[in-house]
């Protein structure tokens, strides 16, 4: 038996010797894949929904924005963020109408409606899909799949034939009708009901009809019409809105407004397909540069270039000052430039990061675990790559996100809420004491910017420099914003009626409650830090840690006193941030449906908000915005918190990378130098073979030694010759 073992080891060593003849043992791809014009990326959480009517998460949009095309898109390189036509021949024309439907001026008092006219480019084709295939009689060939057709089907593209058709205006109308069906769970239906003429009534009727109909059968929306949606011809669609709503243009760049071909909906409604997890939610179809040919959300998703993608070209506009000229190297080239995109599920940071370093992923974010290995922070807070990254010629891009994380005070609370001077001073004092510059340094590796107000950089209304400083919390000193001293905070606290953190009347220490979702071990240090910030003023902070459900519940009902929350921009307009402080959006006043979680309500702020929400970005709007920000700063319903900074790393063979926080359809602009990638991967991943031989030798020696010991023991006499006699 021991000899058997030795034989096994020798056989194993010989096998390994043979394997050693090949190049890279640790590559997760085939040589053909590496050499092809393919982008290798990863996702950490499987997208739940790809159906444009309901997908709303960033990880979902990262995929379906490559597949679907709403009418507008954000220019890839222009800043501030600028909309441009995507499937339209020109930017939408907006007409203003009175109640009778007659044209009026935007400034006229009898203005009742805005009509947005979309002119669709002729000739745009959908991605090839079996739903479009017709037989000789012109009927849809795959509209009635048999059990035989369904057998072994993994994706719709397993069906033999695929075809396409031209994009028409009715497809956009169909998408809006789908949005109106309550059972489709559109997250923006209630918002759009307020703006699109007739949508609310249509939604009520059609949802009722949907309830009556067979839930698994195709529910054709073509015969139904929405009052405010008019398909003029194949290339013109008119959307009528109540009053003026300039932000609607931004909504038109989102996937909720991506076209939906009815044939595809009919195809996916066939019995048996949903049981195979083949649906519009898993294999959406659009006119975008890529089609989803493989969707295993637990393993891999694969996008393939749309063979008949509309003529779109890399922008050749002049660049802003801070942009590298290399960004225009592909100017004027036909898009998309990458043939295939492979997303692999990587739930853990360790394998993801190491595969990036091995060159098996083309780009990576920087997690807290790998930050020190990747990035060094200079004394003045500048981020730079470490020597190890520079040796590999890895590049870095960083940008401040249009996001705000803030610490909210419940304005309905007896202690921290209210609008009198004392209440303001209490909140201002705490705002000074909670040092978000320190928080960013300790917990975010300098990846953030202390906020001076509700509007992040890059959004109209944000002001940089001295003019943009919050005078209640910061001072402008030697060219930078400096947090006011704790002395100032203590003074304010005393003026608020809490000298040294004690109630002036009762003498009892001020005790505040901080509601947080802090269930993990990492949260503890953050909670300790927060407690210390309040301790500096003599305030005792009680942490009320809970799960996310209970936390949300408390905030909705106004039971939380102080809590941490955040907001990510839907579109680059100040209205999308200031509505978080608009009184009528108060969470408590709307039974939890409102977005104003601090329940802030200042009549002057609300009055100005109603004015700015429909204004163009003019100096007048800017002046009103500054007025609003000043009011909010003085009232201090939030500790303004921070705007996070994204950090991404990418290899030298990955071209045209430029952060665009609002556009999701950016893969079409990217390029890969596959030859360089293959070279670098080979250079970085040569197997080290000698430990294999060493291990084999040790095992062999052990076997020989054991065999010898065993034989000695077997031949050992228990009773020696003398004793035996």
């Amino acid at each position: 038996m021991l000899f058997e073992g030795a034989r096994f080891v020798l056989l194993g060593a010989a096998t390994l010797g043979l394997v050693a003849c090949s190049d890279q043992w640790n590559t997760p791809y085939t040589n053909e894949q590496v050499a092809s014009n393919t982008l290798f990326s990863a996702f950490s959480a499987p997208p739940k929904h790809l159906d444009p009517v309901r997908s709303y998460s960033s990880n979902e949009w990262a995929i379906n924005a490559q597949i679907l095309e709403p009418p507008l898109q954000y220019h890839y390189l222009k800043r501030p963020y600028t909309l441009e036509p995507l499937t339209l021949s020109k930017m939408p024309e907006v007409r203003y109408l009175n109640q009778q439907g007659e044209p009026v001026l935007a400034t006229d008092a009898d203005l009742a409606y805005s009509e947005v006219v979309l002119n669709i480019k002729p000739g745009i084709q959908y991605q090839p899909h079996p739903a479009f295939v017709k037989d000789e009689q012109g009927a849809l060939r795959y509209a009635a799949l048999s059990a035989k057709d369904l057998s072994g089907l993994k994706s719709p593209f397993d069906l033999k034939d695929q075809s396409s058709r031209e994009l028409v205006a009715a497809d956009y109308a169909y998408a809006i009708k789908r949005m109106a069906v309550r059972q489709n769970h559109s997250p923006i239906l209630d918002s759009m009901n307020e703006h699109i003429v007739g949508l609310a009534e249509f939604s009520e009727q059609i949802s009722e009809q949907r309830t009556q109909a067979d839930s698994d059968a195709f529910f054709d929306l073509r015969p139904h019409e929405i009052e405010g949606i008019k398909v003029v011809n194949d290339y013109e669609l008119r959307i009528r809105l109540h009053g003026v709503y300039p932000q609607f243009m931004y909504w038109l760049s989102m996937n909720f407004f991506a076209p939906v071909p009815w044939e595809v909906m009919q195809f996916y409604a066939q019995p048996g397909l949903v049981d195979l997890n083949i649906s519009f939610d898993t294999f959406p179809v659009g006119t975008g540069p890529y089609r989803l040919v493989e969707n295993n959300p637990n393993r891999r998703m694969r996008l393939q270039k749309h063979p008949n993608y509309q003529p779109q070209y890399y922008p050749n506009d002049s660049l802003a000052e801070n942009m590298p000229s290399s960004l225009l190297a592909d100017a004027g080239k036909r898009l998309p430039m990458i043939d295939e995109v492979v997303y692999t599920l990587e739930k853990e940071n360790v394998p993801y990061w190491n595969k990036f370093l091995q060159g098996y992923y083309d780009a990576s974010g920087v997690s807290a675990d790998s930050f020190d290995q990747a990035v060094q922070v200079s004394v003045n807070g500048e981020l730079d790559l470490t020597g190890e990254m520079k040796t590999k010629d890895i590049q870095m891009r960083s940008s401040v996100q249009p996001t705000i994380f803030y610490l909210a005070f419940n304005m309905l609370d007896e202690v921290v809420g209210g609008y009198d001077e004392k209440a303001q001073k209490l909140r201002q004092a705490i705002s000074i004491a909670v040092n978000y510059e320190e928080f960013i340094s300790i917990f975010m590796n300098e990846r953030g910017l202390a906020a001076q107000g509700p509007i992040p950089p890059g959004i109209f209304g944000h002001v940089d420099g001295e003019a943009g400083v919050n005078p209640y919390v910061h001072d402008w000193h030697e060219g930078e914003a400096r947090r006011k001293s704790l002395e100032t905070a203590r003074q304010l606290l005393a003026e608020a009626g809490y000298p040294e953190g004690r109630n002036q009347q009762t003498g009892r220490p001020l005790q505040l409650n901080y509601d947080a979702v802090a269930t993990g071990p990492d949260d503890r240090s953050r909670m300790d830090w927060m407690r210390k910030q309040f301790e500096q003023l003599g305030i005792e902070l009680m942490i009320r840690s809970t799960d996310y459900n209970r936390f949300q519940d408390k905030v909705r009902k106004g039971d939380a006193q102080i809590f941490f929350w955040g907001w990510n921009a839907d579109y680059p307009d100040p209205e999308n941030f200031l509505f978080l402080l608009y009184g009528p959006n108060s969470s408590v006043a709307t039974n939890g449906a409102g977005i104003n979680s601090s329940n802030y309500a200042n009549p002057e702020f609300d009055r100005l908000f109603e004015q700015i929400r429909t204004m163009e970005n003019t100096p007048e709007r800017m002046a009103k915005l500054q007025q609003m920000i000043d009011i909010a700063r003085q009232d201090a319903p939030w500790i303004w918190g921070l705007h996070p900074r994204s950090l991404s790393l990418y290899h030298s063979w990955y071209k045209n990378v430029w952060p665009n926080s609002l556009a999701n359809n950016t893969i079409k602009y990217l390029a890969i130098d596959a030859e360089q990638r293959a070279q670098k991967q080979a250079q970085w991943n040569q197997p080290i073979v000698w430990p294999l031989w060493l291990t084999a030798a040790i095992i062999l020696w052990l076997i020989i030694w054991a065999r010898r010991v065993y034989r000695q023991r077997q031949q050992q006499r228990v009773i020696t010759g003398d004793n035996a006699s």
Partner: protein
Amino acid sequence: MMAYIARRLFYAIPILIGVNLITFVLFFMVNSPDDMARAQLGAKQTTPAMIETWKAERGYDKPLFFNNEAPGLVKFSDTLFVEESLKLFVFDFGRSDSGRDIGADILERMWPSLQIALPTFAIGLITTITLALLIVLFRGTALDTSAMVIAVMIMSISGLFYIIAGQVLFSKILNWVPISGYEPGWAGVKFVILPVLIGVFAGLGAGTRWYRSIFLEEINRDYVRTARAKGLSEIKVLFKHVLPNGMLPILTGVVVVIPSLFMGSLIMESFFGIPGLGSYTIDAINAQDFAIVKAMVFFGAVLYIIGLILTDISYTIFDPRVRLS
């Protein structure tokens, strides 16, 4: 034996109802249907109308165990518990709260789990038994002592350490195998080697120590002495006599886990990017997807019951004295 199996399967019904009841109570103690709707809808602003539609679509608008508004016995049958439980007993897992077919997902994900779990189990079992017998062979020597010290060391270190250290050593430093990934069939062998090796190694300490103690108990029995007296070599004594007799206690712990191999391993699959069932339940709990949670708990309970029945059957194979009646 058939009567015995039928009786055990019959006993399984109240167990499964009980398991299902506990799942319902525990899940809905932590999550309300409104919370579930908010989690699934994922909108920034979730309106009451959105929540109500979502609940009505999935039957979460019904009472959990008792419908006060219904007449007679319908008070019990027109409830979420009865409706959802009945479907489970015919293995109709339905759709997840996010709309995917759970049965299709389980079928798709159990094979990758098995691709890792089965070789880890088989190689691990053979290796630990062989090592334990070899250690027994060299009992009382320095090799025995060293092996036990190493076994305790292996047991003392967290499995997560082996995974991360293994990935860094074999994939990053030595560049021998891919750090993570998966391919079905033979193309996937290179992805399977490292997780299987780590799985086997991590279980080596505990397994070897346990089996060694079992074999040491056997080695002093009369039949072993008889075998030696007949002049058999020590290796033959161990592998042909001690091993079969020592299998009974081993089977108790081993056969019961065989059906559960389908369920995969959470950490192993997460780190190695194996698209198995390991994280299916925990992901569903995090996403408050009750449809998956109840299906997986039920599925797990069924597998466990099958495991117990298989254990009983295996006794009759390895010990002819045992009869199932």
